[in-house]
């Protein structure tokens, strides 16, 4: 894969399409796309990590829950993540270690407030590698 993700703009919201050789990589790139909306990832260093474990009723819900968990950690704890190691992923369960640092207003320019990941136009396409599409409310 040449690129990790694309940003798709809608009138009031913003969508992402993330790519990967497999679903774990696509989920990781979706997370990277999310944080690229929030700030410039080049300015973010890997100084801490956080382990996340999630369960959800199905794969699509798992994708939304994964991204919403990251939005929560950003909003509640002020952490920007830039790299994601998904160590376990099946239809209903995800385990990941996410690396990043706390927001520093002198170092990080915050661009867009992301309210949530939505189920609208949500897609997981596993033909020829993996491609996932998510729409965020911003």
């Amino acid at each position, binding site marked *: 894969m040449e690129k990790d993700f694309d940003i798709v703009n*809608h009138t*009031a*919201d913003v969508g992402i399409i993330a790519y990967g050789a497999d679903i774990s990589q696509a989920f990781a790139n979706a997370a990277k796309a999310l944080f690229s909306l929030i700030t410039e990832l080049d300015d973010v260093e890997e100084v801490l990590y956080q382990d996340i474990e999630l369960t959800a009723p199905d794969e699509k819900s798992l994708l939304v829950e994964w991204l*919403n968990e990251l939005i929560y950690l950003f909003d509640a704890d002020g952490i920007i993540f830039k790299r994601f190691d998904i160590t376990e992923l099946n239809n209903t369960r995800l385990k990941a270690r996410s690396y990043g640092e706390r927001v520093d207003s002198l170092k990080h320019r*915050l661009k867009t407030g992301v*309210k*949530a990941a939505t*189920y*609208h136009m949500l897609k997981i396409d596993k033909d020829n590698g993996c491609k996932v599409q998510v*729409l965020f409310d911003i």
Partner: protein
Amino acid sequence: MPAPWQEIVNKIDDYRWEIPQSYKQGMSVPGLIFASESMLSHIWEENAFQQVANVAFLPGIVGRSLAMPDIHWGYGFPIGGVAATRIKDGVVSPGGVGFDINCGVRLLRTNLTEEEVRPKIEQLVAELFTNIPSGLGSKGKIRVNKKELDEVLTKGSRWVIEKGYGEAEDIVVNEEEGCMKGANPDKVSSKAKKRGIPQLGTLGSGNHFLEVEVVDEIYDSDAATAMGISDIGQVLVLIHTGSRGFGHQVCSDYVALLGEAVKKYGINLPDRQLACAPVKSPEGRDYLAAMACAANYAWTNRQCIAHWARESFVKVFGKSLRELGMEQIYDVAHNIAKIEEYPIGGKKETLCVHRKGATRAFPAGHPDIPNIYKNIGQPVLIPGDMGRCSYIALGTETAMKESFGSTCHGAGRVQSRAAAKRSLRGADVARTLAARGITVKAGSIGSLAEEASEAYKDVTEVVDITHKAGISRKVARAIPIGVIKG
């Protein structure tokens, strides 16, 4: 060549367009868009017809799936959508309220005139910007612990007024008197509470703002007088914000939870973001109890901001609040679900009215509006974009008959944030606004371009349609002279 939508919609009159129930299999009721013909092409292009039709799938929906003229493409529900469901056998959908629960608008009056404020506008805007936390990641100056947050969630703005943030009279001129009943903090996740604690008393980012504005047109002077607006040139203060991360988390939590309820109750939906549960089910009741908490959080948030706005005026003009006459005109919610009664087929029905980007618009004499507005109707506050104007209107009987007591809520986006940013630079937007006599202070210069006039429908066109269609009527217009944004 006729536009593609022409074959689908039935024109009722110049401002009403019906999407027939036959448009999509599974619709329980027809759709109705309040719009001008010239707006319909854009509404069609961004697929909002489809969204109005999808909402008509909701079990127990009555009347029609409605769209206000500021409709734009949302996720699941369109923004500018109104849907009423029977509580006895219908559903409630968190997506029909949106992530920013009780995003809304508060309007304060002053005794000041443009002539008095203009010379001090730079100082005033700077003071407001310093005094009111705004922008992404900002924290409020008011500190609440977990127990106090629960009190905010159950008591609403009354709690913070008792702490000295505002006047007892503020509650009277507030939708639901600033406190939605049925709020239960036990139905709110600890995540939502964790996000909510530091963000209380913050304006936020995106399209949220505080605006110092000047009345430049009065259409109904008797009604304007009843609201304390006497003259052209009078200065008002408009506050637009909502329930911040607290509301976002409540919505996320319940969309996930109700996604499961959809399976449990065997509900067939065309879009998962429309996730819902019967109003009377445990899941539906829990959502309404959590939503009420978020609504109360938002009213408290606007109460804090109004208090700091008043403080800023007192400081800059060296006058007391009484001398400044900074009374609250009204406060309305734009994103909310309410239990209300309407006649359906000659019988009174209790309905769950979802307003997502729509304003309640109750007429004169309605029992739920304050005494001082009994003779004129409920004030409807409609903000525009930064560069144009905002409107004060009133609810009507027509709204009760046709739109479940609802009207439009604002301008409605026509351009994505990225497109606006590509075509405009924040610095240029600030210069253009300055040339038009509008002083702006924003946390992020990029947000200025995103929220520029060009990105929005003209609010005047939107408000004129609701006025001509009769679902609200105009009272006055105001233009901004100072704006703070996140």
